[in-house]
């Protein structure tokens, strides 16, 4: 995963819930490739028809509220979205996104300064967001060190694998 990318912005409001990100009727699978065609379907039926891989989701407060379904960030990642920028995230979605390696940025100002279709550049490591059409720049809230490490290790799976190996070497 590269740390810098740019894409077209898709802008949504507050409380985008997991039921509209990926409706329950598609939860008989957790394969990102099968989930992706239905990403955002119940909120914006055109999204998958018109988005191009690398595009960026921009939203208001409480993005990903509702269910614990990891299928939500999996669908977004599977669709090729490079990053989600929101004023705030619901807590389970927040954890799920970091765990599966979907880049997310919390930024109270960016959603006001980005409109649908704007080209946006993100530097994940620096937490910098730039609207290429207006030149405006925004800073994302930095993650605590524990979460930065989790992301740097590639998510939760490699982290747990390392813990298990450590335990096998010196059983408690």
């Amino acid at each position, binding site marked *: 995963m590269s740390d810098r990318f740019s894409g077209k912005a898709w802008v949504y409001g507050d409380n985008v819930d997991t039921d509209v990100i990926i409706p329950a009727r598609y939860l008989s699978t957790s394969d990102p490739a099968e989930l992706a065609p239905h990403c955002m379907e119940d909120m914006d039926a055109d999204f998958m028809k018109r988005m191009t891989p690398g595009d960026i989701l921009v939203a208001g407060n409480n993005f990903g509220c509702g269910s614990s379904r990891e299928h939500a960030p999996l669908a977004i990642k599977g669709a090729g979205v490079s990053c989600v920028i929101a004023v705030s995230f619901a807590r389970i979605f927040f954890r799920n996104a970091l*765990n599966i390696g979907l880049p997310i940025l919390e930024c109270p100002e960016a959603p006001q300064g980005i409109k649908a279709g704007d080209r946006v550049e993100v530097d994940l490591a620096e937490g910098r967001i730039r609207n290429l059409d207006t030149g405006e720049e925004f800073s994302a809230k930095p993650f*605590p060190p524990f979460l930065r490490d989790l992301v740097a290790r590639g998510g939760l799976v490699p982290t747990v694998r390392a813990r298990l*190996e450590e335990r096998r070497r010196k059983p408690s």
Partner: protein
Amino acid sequence: MGRTLAEALIASHTAEPVEPGSICRVRVDFAFANDITGAPAIAEFTRMGAEQVFDPSRCAIVPDHFTPNKDIASARQVQAARTFARNQGMLFWEVGRAGVEHAFLPEKGLILPGEVILGADSHTCTGGALGAFATGVGSTDLAAAWALGETWFRVPQTIRVEVEGTASPWVTGKDLVLSLIGSIGVEGARYAALEFGGEAIAALPMDDRFTVANMAVEAGAKAGLFVPDGRTLAYAGRRAARPFEPVFPDSDAAYSRTIRMDASTLEPVVALPHLPSNVKPASECGHLELDQVFIGSCTNGRLRDLELAAAILKGRTVHERVRLVVIPATAEVFAEALKRGYIETFLEAGAAISTPSCGPCLGGHYGILAPGERCLSTSNRNFVGRMGHTGSEVVLSSPLVAAASAVKGRVADPREFLARDEVPGGGESE
């Protein structure tokens, strides 16, 4: 400064300093998934290189969402869960002996006061009714807990909800929690723990407490906690599958905020589409015609809920335009409701009864909505498309409002049907 219940529960499960905002590695007492979240958890568990769950008697999969299997894909998910659970020696129950996870697991004594519980389902917060730090996570977090017997938490701030006064008999736990969410909003408690207290909370039957804790996540909360009291300990003591040690908050605990509510001013309410915070008095929504009413789910599918619905439906019939779907949340609830005559009452009123399942709550099966249809539901979410077509609507309410509305064919106030002394008391049906 003393500790809130959330802080005390986390502190009893970690060696690290516990302060709001700090991140701790926390021991987990019980970790479970359902048929939808189980499959990805199993895949991640394998990718982690894990071979054995940390303790098979503390790890479970409850098939409840798309069960009895609604189609071949769902059957395969349950099959994968069953095979994994068998190979691991962990807990798994077949249809007919199981139920909706958040009603079923407390009933089996697998969620207990003083514990830390992780579930791959957002309504895991229901376990907070027992004074457990119970919270929902995704499948990868759950897989990590199965592998390690621990997880990480950012210690939440705690919001104390103090409910004084005496509620009228038509006001249930559902009306209380919907009124709270109506006032603080769907992110009013985001990342925070809610801790409930006060005389109206002490008076709440266990089944109503489960309803309140269940909906904590609809305000964005990480947990919805009740301080263990006599009712909690009687319920847990009778059912406990393992020894437990209740944990209590300190009297000088520091809360980020205290919300005061007066139970005597509450009335039966509904949450209109499409957010649980869109709360209005039921008495003001009589213009809303209904096509379906659903009584069930992890929010309101327990014995007390069916008792209240039966009190209204006894000797009455469901409106000819309305389909009433009743789903007891667990096999035990179903059996007891049958013994007490509630099931007969529902059948005579013209209801369809289904076997325990999440059913239509999340748009799975047993009552999916067509475009233009409106359902009054005792469940917890009324998002766009939640129970079917995106052009359908879901209104949330208590079982009393739901039963009254099923009879009237439109949103109704239970006060029109039952006099004060006709509402069954909050007896210890648990």
